[in-house]
């Protein structure tokens, strides 16, 4: 390590909202420590770097690469592969890289429908000839090239091997800082790194453990949208019919949302050992519905169940809001694809 000077840090922003970069800055003055310890080798968001610089680095030159954002197009994938080649430790930083996050929800539709909505059927669009972006365009000056738009969004670990994952949308600053300290300790004082492939910067139990609201036996008659009801701030929101993904989501964020009266949306992803967060939440919600009691006749039960489930708007979008690209089914099958 010493011959090459300070450890090299890289952070790339693939298909995401940039919130993760801001979260890194949110570690307050510790950013100075980071600057002191690390040489920034590649961080396009905060300084001017060129891809060819990275290509110039020898393999493994970058000590720590924080890769945030999902793989939406061919450029994201190429950069992922390039950074993997150039980095010793590759971290899937934030929900997008980990499991597709909000961009991943576009897996419920198709590439054609997406392009159609963006370029053709849109109030602010004036595109009479219906031109769609082409990967190659022969301009007089030469052929122009833009990345190919993928039909399915993929998470980072579906294109390259990932060493660690920091969940969260965005990951909590204090979690980021603890991870950075661990990496620094490992790089400088040779402390051992956490086991490969593990999730770091999070708890190992569901959000409910960190949530201070009072929990009781749950029997839900119907669900409400957040705007429909003012929740009792002392009692578990789920029991009041507000959708809360807390039970099926990894803790670590300190139950930020439920404590302020907003149901957890599940951004820290599933618990360790759970392959599909959405399925786990679906079975939990279905199990605690207080309708369809034994002894009633079947038609009556069916009617009641339909009524309650009509109040769960968009189950797929709710249960897989963050983990769509990393779920078992990964995408909806739209006209055969």
């Amino acid at each position: 390590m010493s011959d090459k000077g300070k450890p090299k840090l890289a952070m790339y922003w693939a298909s995401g909202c940039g919130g993760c970069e801001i979260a890194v800055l949110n570690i307050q003055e510790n950013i100075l420590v980071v600057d002191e310890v690390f040489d920034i080798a590649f961080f396009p968001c905060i300084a001017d770097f060129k891809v060819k610089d990275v290509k110039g680095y020898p393999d493994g030159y970058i000590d720590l690469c924080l890769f945030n954002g999902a793989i939406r197009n061919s450029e994201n994938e190429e950069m992922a592969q390039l950074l993997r080649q150039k980095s010793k430790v590759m971290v899937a930083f934030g929900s997008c890289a980990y499991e597709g996050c909000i961009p991943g929800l576009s897996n419920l539709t198709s590439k054609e429908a997406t392009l159609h909505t963006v370029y053709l059927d849109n109030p602010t669009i004036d595109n009479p000839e219906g031109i769609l972006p082409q990967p190659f365009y022969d301009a007089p000056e030469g052929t122009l090239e833009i990345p190919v738009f993928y039909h399915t969004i993929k998470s980072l670990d579906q294109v390259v091997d990932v060493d660690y994952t920091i969940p969260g949308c965005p990951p909590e600053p204090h979690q980021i800082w603890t991870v950075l300290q661990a990496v620094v300790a490992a790089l400088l004082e040779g402390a051992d790194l956490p086991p490969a492939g593990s999730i770091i910067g999070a708890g190992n139990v569901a959000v409910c453990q960190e949530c201070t609201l009072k929990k009781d036996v749950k029997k839900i008659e119907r669900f409400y949208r957040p705007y429909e009801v003012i929740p009792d701030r002392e009692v578990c929101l789920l029991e009041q019919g507000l959708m809360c993904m807390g039970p099926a989501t990894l803790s670590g964020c300190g139950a930020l949302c439920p404590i302020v009266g907003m149901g957890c949306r599940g951004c820290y992803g599933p618990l360790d050992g759970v392959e599909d967060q959405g399925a786990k939440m679906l079975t939990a919600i279905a199990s605690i519905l207080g309708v369809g009691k034994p002894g009633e006749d079947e038609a009556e039960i069916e009617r009641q169940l339909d009524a309650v489930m009509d109040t769960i708007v968009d189950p797929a979008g709710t249960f897989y809001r963050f983990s769509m690209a990393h779920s078992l089914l990964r995408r909806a099958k739209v006209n055969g694809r």
Partner: protein
Amino acid sequence: MSKERIGVYICHCGTNIASMVDVENVAVWAKENLADDGVVVARDYKFMCSSLGQELIQDDIKEKGLTRVVVAACSPHLHEQTFRAACAKAGLNPFLCEMVSVREQVSWVHTDKAMATQKAKAMITGGVERVALHEPLEPLHVPINEATLVVGAGIAGIQAAIEIADSGFPVYLVEREPSIGGHMAQFDKTFPTLDCSACILTPKMVTAGSHPNIHLLSYSEVERVDGYVGNFTVTIRKKARYVNEDVCTGCGICIEKCPMKVIDDVFEAGLGYRKAVYRPFPQAVPKYPVIDTENCIYFQRGKCQACQIFCPTQPNSIDFEQEDELLQVDVGNIILATGYDLFDARRIPQYGYGRLANVFTSLEFERMCNASGPTNGAVRLRDGVTEPEAVAVIHCVGSRDKNYNNYCSVICCMQSLKFAHLVKERAGPNTEVYNFYIDMRTAFKDYDEFYQKVLAEGVHFVRGRVAEVTDAARLPGEEGKLIIQAEDTLIGKQRRVPVDMVILSAGLEPRHDSVEVGHQFGISCSVNGFFTEKHPKLDPVATMTEGIFIAGCAQGPKDIPASVVQGAAASARVLGRIQQKELALEPVRASVIEEKCSGCRICNTMCPFNAILFHEDQMVTEINPALCQGCGSCVAACPSGAITGTQFSDQQVLAQLEGLLMLSVNGGRVLEPEMA
């Protein structure tokens, strides 16, 4: 690469499997293709369940150091115990043996040999993937409470109670009616011996009533059953008799003095009367009378109290303030001997019961023949005076009939023969008796001899189902008579037989509340409504719920000897359990991984057996292994995956699923990426 050493054994089952599944090919295939899944030996053998077959496994375990065994043969419900025992004998934990049902689910139900063989391979792959993840388990040992609960004190219940009590163990005998004895107490004679029913039943009733080990709870019903085999907690409601049992001597003066006479439609089957304070029949056990609050003048209008006034006992045993009592008893096993209900003959309007006066049901006629019955044993028409000159007995009323009950009620033929004999005996030998039957079913000991005797007495037997019983006379000699319109299939003609009296041999139906009672005790009812036995041929007195046994007509129509036998059989099973002192239960249980539980309490409503309890202090849920029945609903409900279940954990099921998905239905690996 699985580190387990797995042995795969495919059974020919004679030709049952080998005829449709190429067993040799499957064995060879398993050896080659599943080697990297841990299969070290794969054999096929003619009869795996035979001792030789089992030795094959045992030798392989010893010589080849097998750590897992997969047996592809019949259904686990048949031989799972056999192969587990075989593995245990060879030193391998029995729960590391998995059965794959290639007989019931493959060879017997498919027609295409290639596809059947393919499916067998796929299912064996599933079994291999799954068994690799099995863990060694020890059966759960549950102490057995030596007390037993017997519900229903008809002849079956009484027999069961006496047998257990005689072996020195306590029995709680619960009976819904004021007296024990059940339907048998209503009969006059019993076939085929024509013993007087009371004479052979009363001694057993007295024994049951006074046995030191039998706690008789008559006029009581079971309210609730909690717990599990070996440790049931039963709540019993002892209905208020309004008679103080410690003081009452059973003298019966209150019954004489009571001014209120009502039709008794339970014991007297609607043919006789009883007082508002009554004892069902003289030999009732216990001997204490009961006040029927619906008809008692005091309870309805607050006057009278004749029974209290004339009661000679000090202090007065009539106590109008008496309340229902709720008792709680702990028992290890439960025997349900709740008996049957008679088919309601009014449901067949063309037989005229309820419209035509002189049409009687079998129970009404039983009461009529009984010496303590409404006519003191004399056969009379509905006017109670005239003796019939001609009587018709109709078999299969409401049985063997697609409009009512498909099944045969077993006892109606013999009962009808008994009625024919009783009419001849009581109303004189030259009384004409016509029995209308479909098939004469006299299957058991001395039954057919009784049929020959009744034939010899000159009873006419007409083979044909009765179409109609009408009083519309048509031919001369039919005036004022009941005319039986039936087809006599033996002479191929329609016949109109004028008679004075008709007896309908109504069929046996399950108790009207058998579904609720079944639900209360955690057992199910079969298509016909009787309780479902564990196995109709090999295990008729047990049920699928451990510790719950059934006996007598509650399990299906049967005659008295069979009910007694089943009562004794059920008690033998219970005594076997009690002797074991404890019971080894299938170790299929759920358990919470404490460090993964977030205290979200989603699972808290999942358990009808109250096995899930929440610790407020540590904000963590725990499952009581003793109460848990292993259904797994909480395992599937836990959003953190913090609850796992032995034998049916997520990993095991998913492994089996992955194995099943390996092979396509008609050959070739399903998942070769198609060259699109």
